[in-house]
């Protein structure tokens, strides 16, 4: 076989395998969308694969008319924005100061922060702290504990350090203060990094689940993930009860579960394409030093 022919076969096989991998990534979503748009009968008889059967918007109508679901969505959006803004403000503040090599005590500040990446009290002392601060069942229990990620802070420091020093010096000669330099020189040049880190913070908060499970008992403060978890999990329990013939457990229709899953996924998928071009460069910046 000639070199060219074998190259061609390699390319074709490679593309085919990648296509299969892409399908494996996508088909579960397609399936769940199909389920969410089908009526119960074909779902129960296992007829729904990748296309809706007996097409209906009923499940979505139910999700959107469930006020607690809408409230949970609104709360989660607000929570995510609040947490991301505060996290970014704090991370920028600490990263900018620590990016100054001449800062006295810099090593010590670095040390007390980096130590927390490698050792932590664990979830029980975390819980007791939140309890003692009377933050249980408040928004702040979901915002404050994860406010600054030392890892993201390091990414940002290395990015700030990669900005040519001469720009800062020029600003200093013009007599700007540190804050002036930060806002007028550093931040405008860091927009890709800031966008990436905001995305990471926002996704982390949006997807966050364990803290809500531990700290939140008030249903009106359930973030979407916790609400979704309870919907799906309750269903699993009742499915088991039904299998074991334990009474008349009310089964939540599969389509409603699927619609809720789609409902909670869509916001991420809407934001994703806009920020996608940023996060790779952001990851690289972190990989070099992180």
């Amino acid at each position, binding site marked *: 076989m000639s070199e060219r022919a074998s190259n061609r076969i390699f390319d074709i096989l490679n593309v085919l395998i990648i296509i299969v991998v892409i399908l494996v990534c996508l088909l579960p*979503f397609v399936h769940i969308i199909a389920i969410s748009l089908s009526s119960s009968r074909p779902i129960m008889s296992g007829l729904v694969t990748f296309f809706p059967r007996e097409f209906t918007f009923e499940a979505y109508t139910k999700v959107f008319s469930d006020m607690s679901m809408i409230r949970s969505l609104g709360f989660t959006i607000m929570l995510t924005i609040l947490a991301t803004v505060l996290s970014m403000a704090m991370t920028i503040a600490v990263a900018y100061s620590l990016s100054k090599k001449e800062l006295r005590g810099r090593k010590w500040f670095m040390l007390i922060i980096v130590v927390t990446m490698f050792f932590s009290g664990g979830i029980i002392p975390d819980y007791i702290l939140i309890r003692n601060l009377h933050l249980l069942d408040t928004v702040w229990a979901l915002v404050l504990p994860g406010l600054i990620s030392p890892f993201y802070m390091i990414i940002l420091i290395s990015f700030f350090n990669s900005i040519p020093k001469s720009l800062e010096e020029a600003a200093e000669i013009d007599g700007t203060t540190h804050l002036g330099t930060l806002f007028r020189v550093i931040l405008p040049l860091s927009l890709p990094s800031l966008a990436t880190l905001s995305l990471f913070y926002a996704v982390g908060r949006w997807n966050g689940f364990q803290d809500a499970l531990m700290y939140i008992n008030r249903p009106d403060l359930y973030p979407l993930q916790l609400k979704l978890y309870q919907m799906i999990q309750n269903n699993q329990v009742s499915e088991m009860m039904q299998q074991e013939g334990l009474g008349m457990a009310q089964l939540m229709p599969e389509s409603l579960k699927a619609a809720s*899953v789609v409902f909670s996924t869509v916001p991420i998928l809407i934001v994703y394409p806009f920020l996608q071009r940023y996060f790779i460069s952001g990851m690289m910046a972190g990989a070099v030093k992180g």
Partner: protein
Amino acid sequence: MKNTTYLRRNWQLYALLMLPVIYFLIFKYGPMYGVQIAFKEFNFFEGIAGSEWVGLDIFREVFQNNDFFKALRNTLLLNLLDLIISFPAPLILAVMLYELRIIWFKKFAQTILYVPHFISWVIIGGIVLQVFGTESGFINNLLTGMGLDAIPFLSNKHYWLITYLLVGVWQSAGWGTILYLAALTGINKELFEAAEVDGAGRFKKIFHISLPGIKTTIATLLIINLGNMISIGFDRPFIVGNVAVRDYSEVLSTFVYRVGIESGQISLATAVGLFQALVGLIFLLGANYASKKLADESIL
């Protein structure tokens, strides 16, 4: 520079540092102070300081607890299997993506492959039930439709293990390609051209240029993974797991949650958490030392 001029010039930097440092002291070092309840009989009314010291009694209790050993075993087992199955996946995928000649297709593939990384485990858990469920799951519908027996992916512990691992690959493989792709892009293009002149085929180039070119990246990531052997996230085992497969799905993080928050055995759970943190620290420092020796690259 005199101290006063230094401060006058730089006070803003310290002002910026103030809130973050207070944050770390309260929310990171505060819990470290709370670690002492692993050595106390914790009592909510007396608080951390008021509870009575009991020495190593709690740890004795931990090491006599069968469920603890099961959680420890499962943590190591799941991480080890993950390393075997999930570690090579992004590497292979990255090499394949790197070999793609059609740029728009490569970009498109990457866009799609990164998506699962951004989906929460709760949502993945919901999808897993729809796809792998024993009664009405998609795969079992196909199997029974073909006249085959349904496979208990989620309720039999051995099948569950496979499901857990596959779902992990699905979620993380695409995202994991980023670092490898970056490393591959860093390889000198002339090496490939020279190999082509020598008549090397695609596989030869992969095995003699691409893979050796990124071997430090591979080694470093492998070591980081080994360093994290005992730490395990909470969401994945908690959500993908269920009561029927608790024998395999109960890991240290879920054990701590159940014992501490659900059953209120605060001291016991704290002791387990402390054990995990200390052993984890040792693993991590060991891994860092190893990577310094092997790859001449420190991860800390």
